[in-house]
């Protein structure tokens, strides 16, 4: 390998951290690109007569915004970045169970990125944002390319799910039982199980849609076919996809809150049960979107129950997270503030779900901007805040650099204010019956449009501040301490343990008393009695 030029060695790499760094780059690039399209949409709503761009370009921007942010950013963010970066070492494995498959995951992800990017450059996809095939729909090559991209993204997520599951189940350190692993490992595992189902559905959907547009085959569109079948499959991917994002994100929040409170997460194994229950319920969550399609009342009652039941495990997780703060030794850090952002976004997203899943109000609000805001808080807020929380927490471990506390807090504040200002007004507008891109403008709601624009500006500023903080930290010479936060999970302890010659760490996750702060190196180290010689 030494003789390979640098680019070839990167292409052939099976190092999970290296791969995760490239995937992090791809995910961040998708976030920035998606935000660009969002700015076009916002500018249109603000412009007089709403005539900045024509209807086709507007529809194309919405499609691109949704595809990039849902499929290239939100869904891959947790498994491909956080999963790849920390999961193997968190369970005491050297690498993924299938390192070569991990490289294939990266290559598939990059390929789907390229296909979707070319599709967007190729022409405005002014179809519905779900790319729904219509009876009179003309086949265009950008849509065919985007469909191929979705297919490859399905394969990306499938291979990553297999690797995550196999690593947790078969590569775990013998010192760690499934009941003892950190909460993030439970979240990642439950998320990966859902991810396996979602990804296979996405791969099939992408392939069928590709055939529809690339050949004369009629699959969903055409007179004899049913575009609703397509939309239902898409809704399934979207609803279950929320679990792919949130279950690991909730795990991240638990790790951060536990470490910065210096005590074990409250609730212990009940968290594993709750995460598993959420995974199961997420599979039936898309049923509620049939609310206005003439489905029988009895069926809708069942779907309403399935969706609302998610409140039970979600409340338990929220309670356990808060109870972890009780009696803790709390240090308010940038990572903790980002974790609290995550909790707020998920809570608002979850509570708005109650309005949509309760049949009487849901029938009126489904498909409106209320629905869209719900999605933005859960999927968007969950993915953005989940990623920033994870990065602020693990950055010193992964890059050996420290970010600046002040910038991290500023970023958290901007993200918080920006996100709420940008998307809370959508709940009001949705209650007024408006849907996305409504041309109808209500003078009474003009001030809300201004609030949304202000929020979007603050949000973009926050994203830029955070990106600059991480980027500039790489330019600094100063090395970070090995374990600055005093974390107790294995990925932080590798070096601590290795530095003691021939010794091994014996501490379990969340055994905070086993670590003490060493002011000389500004890092937490193992208390002597926990280092045993072999």
């Amino acid at each position, binding site marked *: 390998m030494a003789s390979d030029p640098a680019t070839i060695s990167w292409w052939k790499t099976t190092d999970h951290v290296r791969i995760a760094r490239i995937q992090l780059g791809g995910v961040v690039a998708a976030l920035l690109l998606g935000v660009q399209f969002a700015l076009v949409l916002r500018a249109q709503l603000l412009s007089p007569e709403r005539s900045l761009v024509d*209807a086709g370009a507007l529809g194309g921007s919405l499609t691109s915004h949704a595809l990039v942010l849902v499929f290239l950013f939100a869904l891959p963010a947790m498994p491909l970045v956080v999963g790849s970066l920390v999961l193997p070492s968190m369970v005491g494995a050297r690498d993924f169970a299938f390192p070569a498959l991990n490289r294939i995951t990266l290559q598939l992800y990059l390929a789907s990125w390229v296909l979707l990017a070319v599709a967007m450059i190729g022409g405005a996809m*002014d*179809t*519905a*944002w779900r790319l729904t095939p*219509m*009876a*009179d729909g003309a086949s265009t090559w950008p849509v065919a390319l985007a469909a191929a991209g979705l297919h490859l993204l399905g394969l990306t997520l499938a291979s990553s799910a297999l690797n995550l599951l196999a690593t947790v189940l078969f590569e775990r350190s013998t010192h760690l039982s499934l009941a003892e692993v950190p909460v993030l490992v439970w979240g990642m595992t439950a998320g990966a199980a859902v991810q396996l189902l979602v990804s296979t559905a996405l791969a099939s959907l992408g392939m069928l849609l590709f055939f529809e547009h690339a050949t004369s085959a009629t699959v969903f569109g055409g007179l004899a076919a049913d*575009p*609703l079948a397509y939309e239902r499959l898409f809704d399934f991917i979207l609803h279950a996809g929320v679990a792919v994002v949130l279950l690991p994100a909730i795990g991240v929040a638990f790790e951060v809150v536990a470490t910065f*409170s*210096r*005590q*074990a997460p*409250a*609730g212990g194994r*009940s968290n594993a049960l709750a995460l598993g229950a959420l995974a199961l319920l997420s599979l039936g969550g898309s049923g509620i979107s049939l609310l*206005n*399609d*003439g489905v029988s*009342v009895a069926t809708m*009652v069942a779907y*309403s129950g399935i969706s*609302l039941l998610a409140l*039970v495990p979600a409340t*338990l997780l929220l*309670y*356990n997270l*808060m*109870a972890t*703060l009780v*009696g803790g*030794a709390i*240090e*308010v850090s940038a990572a903790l503030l980002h974790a609290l952002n995550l909790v*707020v976004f998920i*809570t608002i997203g979850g509570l*708005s779900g*109650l*309005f949509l*899943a*309760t*049949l*009487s*109000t*849901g029938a009126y609000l489904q498909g*409106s901007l209320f629905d869209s805001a719900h999605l933005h808080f859960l999927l968007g807020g969950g993915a953005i805040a989940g990623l920033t929380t994870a990065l602020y927490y693990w950055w010193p471990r992964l890059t050996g650099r420290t970010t600046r506390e002040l910038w991290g807090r500023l970023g958290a*504040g901007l993200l*918080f*204010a920006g996100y*709420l200002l940008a998307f809370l007004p959508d709940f009001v507008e949705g*209650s*007024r*019956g408006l*849907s996305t891109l409504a*041309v*109808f403008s209500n003078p009474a709601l003009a001030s809300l449009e201004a609030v949304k624009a202000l929020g979007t500006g603050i949000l973009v500023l926050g994203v830029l501040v955070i990106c600059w903080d991480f980027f500039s930290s790489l330019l600094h010479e100063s090395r970070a301490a090995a374990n600055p936060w005093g974390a107790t999970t294995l990925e932080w302890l590798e070096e601590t343990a290795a530095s003691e010659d021939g010794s091994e760490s014996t501490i379990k996750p969340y055994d*905070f008393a086993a670590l*003490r*702060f060493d002011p000389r190196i500004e890092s937490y180290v193992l208390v002597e009695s926990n280092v045993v010689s072999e």
Partner: protein
Amino acid sequence: MRARALLIAFFVTAPVMAQGWMPEVASLGAQTVDRDFMILLVLAALAVLALFFVVDLLVVMNLRQDPDQVGTSPGGVRLYRLLAVLLPLVLVIALVSMGVHGYIDASVAPTDALAVEAHGGQSGWSFRYSEDVETDILHVPSERPVRLTLHAEDKPMTLAIPAFRLRQNARPEANTEAWFEASLPGEYVLLSSGSSLAGSAGMHSIVTVLPPLEFDSWLESKSDVLLTLPPAEAGLVLVERKGCPVCHTTDGSRLTGPSFLGLMGRSSVLADGSTAVADAAYVRQSILDPASQVVEGFQPVMPSFAGQLRDAEIDAIIAYLTSLSETREAP
């Protein structure tokens, strides 16, 4: 912290604002939806408020004094954990049953409801009350249930009337239904959005709610002219509805087509050189297949009305044309 204070202020005022949040109430079912919405809004606002206060309080109370300090109560309290499962479970049951009540009321139309078919197409919605009455603006009576049967021409569409808290999807392959009972006469916003964004994104129109008696007379004026008018007068209405006067005058002057004045019984030279006398059969043929007998000097530009006019309607038009010729000959 300031952002948090702002947010708290927002959630405190939200329930108060809620009356202004939702659009005006103009139907029976709207009140149920609003009541359920308010209950949920208060619940959600309290939950978010509680979250903020609890987090603030816990963080301030438990700040780390010394880097080696560890938490003193790991694990949490089992009783509270049990409550964190039971309370939301009770809430879920309450919400399912609350939603079902409103939803059943909103799903099952009374049997005596006025039936209206809504057709969604490229240019928006058209509403059909009977075979002959069709309008682009939905007119409904107040204080009387109305059942909408929705159908979309080629792609899924959504029809929403916020003041009635009504939103229903229409699909090309099957009909869907919705019903409402408007409570107050007036004009309300009707929003429609297409699944496809090109063209049909967010069009809006209005729905006109009339007092029951006014609605009845409106419907009568719109309904079948053959039943309500003598044949010649019905013919006049039909001729105007189909736009005939654009090309055919009734004062003898010549436009794109020959004038209707004195048409019946007139003999004309056709484009192919033959001569034809305008009788009932000639008129019928000209309406259904205009290109077959074009009068010399005119262009064959008239569209066929085959399938758009029933036989009885063509009879009425013939009666009207005949009446034009009689009035000329009468003096």
